[in-house]
């Protein structure tokens, strides 16, 4: 099982400070939520964790079963789902799965089993032939998640997977995440929806590139003396 820790993570794009010294623990087997409004630094954090960006300062530390590890060691077990549309509109659900199967070099038996399971739990099996460009917002996100999950990752990074998705699909999506979390996968999901914070086992509240607080949702609320996560952000916003 992998866990990740960041220490004083900073990322600067020209004059813009996207992350300004963020340190938190992403302990193994839990469902972590990166909570924050637009521009808080959620996407930058996830891209840094996925090795798609290099920190301007600070570092990301990787551990495997409590021992020091590296990004290179974790990489084969890492799955990442970007926030923006990243699938091919002219390829069907089935063709996407086939494509990612070949990128991950899964054998036929594993692929049949995995894709069967995924199509069933996402209830996309009836839409195998449908092109990604013709899927609804929720189905599109589920297809993205399926492509990420095909290789049975042990670390899953999801960037605002429920953004722009209708409430019913959002609930379904979270049920999927719970099922995955039960398998002791390290899941890090970012969201701007405050109500989703309570669904996570750990939350990390980001505001304009800084970490406001980190911990179990209830403890975080208690420590801040706030009734809701919105309240913490409103207080934090006055800083």
């Amino acid at each position, binding site marked *: 099982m992998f866990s990740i820790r960041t220490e004083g993570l900073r990322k600067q*794009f020209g004059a813009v400070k996207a992350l300004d010294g963020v340190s938190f623990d992403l302990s193994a087997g839990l469902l972590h939520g990166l909570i924050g409004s637009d521009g808080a630094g959620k996407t930058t954090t996830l891209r840094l964790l996925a090795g798609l960006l*290099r920190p301007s300062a600070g570092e990301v530390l990787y551990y495997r079963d409590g021992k020091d590890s590296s990004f290179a060691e974790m990489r084969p077990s890492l799955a990442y789902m970007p926030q923006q549309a990243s699938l*091919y509109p002219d390829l069907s659900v089935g*063709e996407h799965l086939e*494509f990612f199967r070949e*990128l991950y070099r899964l054998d036929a038996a594993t692929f049949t089993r995995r894709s069967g399971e995924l199509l069933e739990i996402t209830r996309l099996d009836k839409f195998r032939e449908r092109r990604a460009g013709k899927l609804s917002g929720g189905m599109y996100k589920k297809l993205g998640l399926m492509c990420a999950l095909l290789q049975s990752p042990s670390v899953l990074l999801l960037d605002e997977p429920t953004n722009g998705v209708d409430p019913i699909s959002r609930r379904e999506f979270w049920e999927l995440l719970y099922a995955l979390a039960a398998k002791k996968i390290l899941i890090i999901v970012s969201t701007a929806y405050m109500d989703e914070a309570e669904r996570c086992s750990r939350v990390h509240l980001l505001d304009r590139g800084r970490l406001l607080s980190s911990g179990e949702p209830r403890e975080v609320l208690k420590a801040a003396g706030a009734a809701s996560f919105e309240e913490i952000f409103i207080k934090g916003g006055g800083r």
Partner: protein
Amino acid sequence: MNGFSLHRAWAIARKEVMHVLRDPFTLALALGLPVMLVTFFGYAIDFEVRDIKVAVADRDNGPAARRLKEIFSASGYFQVLEAADPVGMLDSRRADAALFIEPGFSRDAQGGRPARAQFVLDGSDNSKGAVMMAYLPGIQRAAAARIYGLEPAFAPLSVETRFLFNPELSSRWFMVPGLAVIIIGLLAILLTAMTVAREWENGSMELLLSTPVRPLEIIIGKLAPYGLLVLTGVFFVYLSARLVFGVPFEGSHLLFLLACLLFITAALSQGLFISVAARQQQVAMQVAIISGLLPSMLLSGFIFPVESMPAFFQYFTMILPPRWFMVAARGIFLKGSGLAELAVPLAALAALSLLLLALALKKFKTDLEP
């Protein structure tokens, strides 16, 4: 796990084929455009000049003057127009040249003395002027024979010119293989210039980079299907060159295929390099058109011979794949050149292909850093 995998390159290639098959525009561009352009420009671009209008002021009106005019019109290149004011006709572009035959022309000719006429050219049209200059010695020789009764053999030294490979000096034979080079090169660059930039623009590159796929696998996976597509385009161009324009094909088809493959690889790699560096389809498209069209039109020897360029440009053209493929295509089509004659152009094409491929690979970003 993370070494090069042909399997993954094949997956990228297959995905690319699906994109192409589902995008009628790309398919039509790749298969239809080359034939259309070669046929269209093959007819339009013709360096031979016929029916040059010559305004003639015949102030002699004698038999020798009449004969001289006959010689001009019988050549097939000139159309003789009697004119009182030939210069006015030149000014108003109703004539391309003027011929002045002064009184006494026939008298001098009959007396065996040199008979003089003045031929005035419109120097503002350089290319026509040069062609007329080339036709004039022939007219002069014909005049010597028909007016003075001199046989060509009379000249103490006689040079007979015969053009090898293209006996009629048909400019189409010369143009069509050259046009094919330019159009195929442009098409190959354009097609690949869009592919990587498209992945960046629609966000799929972010997802691809988080998978185990390596840049070389992406590059090979993207080169292969477009290479095949352009090669099919070449086949159609070959057919139209042979069937529509009757261009002879003297060389080896296998050698032509090899030269095509090398040139297409170089052009596709150039497109990929642009795509990798630009990361935006519109920028990539503009750079592809400029870098794909201008050097190959002006510096490849298509119109202007490389040998007559200033020394710097002669060396500069060496880094341009179309310059080498131009030599190979014309050589194989018209001269039947073999591997030995084309060793240098083919080696240069291979070297440039590798260089451009290496550049694209080096420039390929594996992260999202700006």
